[in-house]
């Protein structure tokens, strides 16, 4: 701290300094000049400094790779192998965390400082019932005996909103939904009554309604237990809902920091402004006005609507796994060049629709017609011939897993061409390069392996693999859910462009209303295997008729920046808290 005499509530390095009221609480955590570097001396986090006051809620936002998670990991003493704190200091109360040994950490981590991460399932041992894992954690941190620990475990499970604590206690992690698992992790994290809780993308992988519930839970725990909260997210809206201070990071440095209302309402920095603009453009609140729904892309004029000849017609589709019906009475159609958004939560059957079209699931009843061919009737050789015709292409949810890690990108992208028929190597290479350019990737990347690419580049590469075959219909399974907001927008713009310039029809399934609202022409809302509402995207999202759609819209995290969002909220008839 430059001037220890003044109580500095918030002090980003190189940024503005805001003096808090004289009686503001003292800092619980002080990070000063934190620089994290790898072995080659590359600085991944540069000169980051901030104070976290006792009882405060700090949000850290930024794209992936902005250094937000690394900063938190440094605070927890959990930097990945090969990375080191090169300079700076991290103080918790009067303890210098950087000088702490393994023994010192054991007294602090999980007891005073706690954390919740993105993928809850991977932090639970799959072969041990939840209750036992919780009791063991309690016994080691609090030194309770077996009985007291299990009683406290029940109490904790109830306090994180798991009403049926007895059942959850006996269940194995794989029997829990993502939201339940995250609640259990939160229960473990707060079990020892920590002062500081770090939630690193803790709600990113969850459905909108579940995300809202978990955020609500964190907020409730914070108030009830006087927790100090650091919330890390790439989602501006999530942070704005819970936090009173916001730090915006980019390329390892803080670009802007301050009270949430000020940073989000009157951002100083152009980068923050662009984040907020992007959120408005592709977030759901911007779709209140149908004319403004899709920002016109530079250089693209909307194509005249062609005569409606349905490219794909699904009638009365029913599919079941065993006795459980996953889809029932689904009727959908997609026109050429149209983007159909299918919204639904995990387990609503979205993916099963796509898998039925692809012939990976055999429906019980119903037909799926592509042009004049019924896809549900294809078997064996006919199915393979249809697949080689490449009329329908599927884009997987996880681009990294859908690319062979041992093959250079060019080979993966050209694979479909190798399969469709005889093609000369140089012809294939030209088409691969064209496809790479079409998705905005440098053709030089064709020689690289998937692990050398960023998440956004991989998602484009997977798109290129589908596009190289000139499909009439693209099926996109959550194509942007793993991407940060900047890359998400690029991919969404690309999808729009493909529909308008090349007339490629797309079915885009997602649990994220914001991205669907920004790009789809029509939407269908799927709930428990049935379509509860369908229509023009703008109309459905502006005035939903079905109660489920309304609930989905309400649970969307919204940007709480005062004046900007308010009119849109009003359009939806949603009360601000």
């Amino acid at each position: 701290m430059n001037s220890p005499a003044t109580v500095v509530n918030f002090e980003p390095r190189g940024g503005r300094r805001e003096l808090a009221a004289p009686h503001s609480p003292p800092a619980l955590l002080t990070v000063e000049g934190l620089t994290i570097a790898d072995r080659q001396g590359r600085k991944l986090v540069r000169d980051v400094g901030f104070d976290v006051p006792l009882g405060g809620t700090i949000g850290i936002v930024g794209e992936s790779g902005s250094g937000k998670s690394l900063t938190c990991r440094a605070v927890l003493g959990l930097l990945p192998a090969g990375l080191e704190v090169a300079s700076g200091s991290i103080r918790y109360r009067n303890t210098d965390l950087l000088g702490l040994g393994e023994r010192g950490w054991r007294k602090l981590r999980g007891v005073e400082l706690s954390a919740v991460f993105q993928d809850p399932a991977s932090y639970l041992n799959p072969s041990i019932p939840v209750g036992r894992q919780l009791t063991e954690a309690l016994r080691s941190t609090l030194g309770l005996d077996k009985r007291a620990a299990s009683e406290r475990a029940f109490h904790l499970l109830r306090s994180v909103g798991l009403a049926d604590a007895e059942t959850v206690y006996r269940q194995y992690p794989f029997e829990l939904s993502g939201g339940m698992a995250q609640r259990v992790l939160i229960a473990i994290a707060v079990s020892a009554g920590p002062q500081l809780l770090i939630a690193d993308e803790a709600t990113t992988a969850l459905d909108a309604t579940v995300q809202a519930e978990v955020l609500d839970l964190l907020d409730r725990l914070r108030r009830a237990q006087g927790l100090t909260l650091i919330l890390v997210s790439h989602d501006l809206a999530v942070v704005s809902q819970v936090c009173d201070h916001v730090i915006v990071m980019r390329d390892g440095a803080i670009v802007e920091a301050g009270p949430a209302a000020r940073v989000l309402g009157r951002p100083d920095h152009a980068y923050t402004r662009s984040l907020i603009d992007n959120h408005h453009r592709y977030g759901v609140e911007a779709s209140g006005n149908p004319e403004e729904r899709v920002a016109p892309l530079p250089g693209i004029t909307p194509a005249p609507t062609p005569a409606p000849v349905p490219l794909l017609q699904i009638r009365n589709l029913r599919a079941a796994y065993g006795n459980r019906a996953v889809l029932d009475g689904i009727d959908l159609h997609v026109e050429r060049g149209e983007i159909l958004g299918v919204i639904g939560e995990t387990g609503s059957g979205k993916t099963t629709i796509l898998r039925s079209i692809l012939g990976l699931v055999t429906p019980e009843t119903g037909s799926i017609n592509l042009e004049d061919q019924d896809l549900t009737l294809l078997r064996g050789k006919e199915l393979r011939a249809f697949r080689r015709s490449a009329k329908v292409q599927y884009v997987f949810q996880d681009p990294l897993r859908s690319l062979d890690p041992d093959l250079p990108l060019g080979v993966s992208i050209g694979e479909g061409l190798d399969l469709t028929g005889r093609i000369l190597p140089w012809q294939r290479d030209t088409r691969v390069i064209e496809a790479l350019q079409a998705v905005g990737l440098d053709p030089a990347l064709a020689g690289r392996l998937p692990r050398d690419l960023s998440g956004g580049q991989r998602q484009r590469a997977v798109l290129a693999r589908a596009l190289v075959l000139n499909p009439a219909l693209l099926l996109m399974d959550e194509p942007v859910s793993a991407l940060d907001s900047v890359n998400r927008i690029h991919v969404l713009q690309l999808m729009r462009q493909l529909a308008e310039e090349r007339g490629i029809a797309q079915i885009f399934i997602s649990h994220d209303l914001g991205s669907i609202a920004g790009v789809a022409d029509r939407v269908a809302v799927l709930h428990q295997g049935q379509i509860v509402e369908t229509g023009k995207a703008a109309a459905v999202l502006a005035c939903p008729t079905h109660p489920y759609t309304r609930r989905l819209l309400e649970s969307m995290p919204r940007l709480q920046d005062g004046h900007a969002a308010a009119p849109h909220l009003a359009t939806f008839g949603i009360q601000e808290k």
Partner: protein
Amino acid sequence: MRVRPRPDTGLPIRIAFLILGIVATLVLAGPYLAPHDPLAQNPYALLQWPSQDHWLGTDAFGRDVLSRLLAGSRVSILASLLSVAIGLLFGVVPGLASVFLNRHFEWLSLRLIDALMTLPFLVFAIAMTAMLGNGLVQAMFAVGILITPAFYRVSRAAALSVVNSDYIEAARLMGASTFFIIRRHVLSKVLPAVAVTTAAMAGACLSIVASLTFLGIGVVPPEPTWGGLLATDLTTLYERPFGPFAPGLLIVATVWALNALADGLRDRITQPQEAQA
């Protein structure tokens, strides 16, 4: 957080390659390097100690030991390579087929492999030579069959770890055949593991060849082999106490080199994955 320093694998691998290089030379050129006819008996020079004419002395029939050792390399090494080749063929192909073919084949091949794993090497090899006739090819065929489980298991495990991956489903959705998928996506995951097993099994087979020929199975005298030399040297231990040293050293060094190579290969393969994590 510190990464545990990896033991330097460079030196053992280099020594292993040197030894294997020497052994390969013996296999290719052994008979031509031999200073004497390995089969020529000399009743006037029985059980001699090393001399300028006979560097490793002579045996009970007056034959030059060095020449017999050099001439015996080819049979010993080729026999173990034959077993490994048989193990590879009958292990890797069914191992991949068990993942990609169908349920019935999977069940059947797994049971067959389990059964093979219960058979002891030497006893089975002796039984095979008793049944098919005493020859090295018959014996090594038996050994080859017995090492198939190692190849089967390794290739099956590697294929299982990728068969449900998204990129294989993506290839299927583009209309790829199973053969195409194996060639393009599966082999590259299976081969590294198979390479390690091959090196380790080559070492194991060499010691089995040595054991069999030591027992007199598979070779007909006076054909020289490493194991056979070891056996005859043992019978004349009183006259030539250093006798078993030379064939013993050759066997031990070659087996060690193959094992070191397998270890080194395994480290080389697992290293990049650790670096990623």
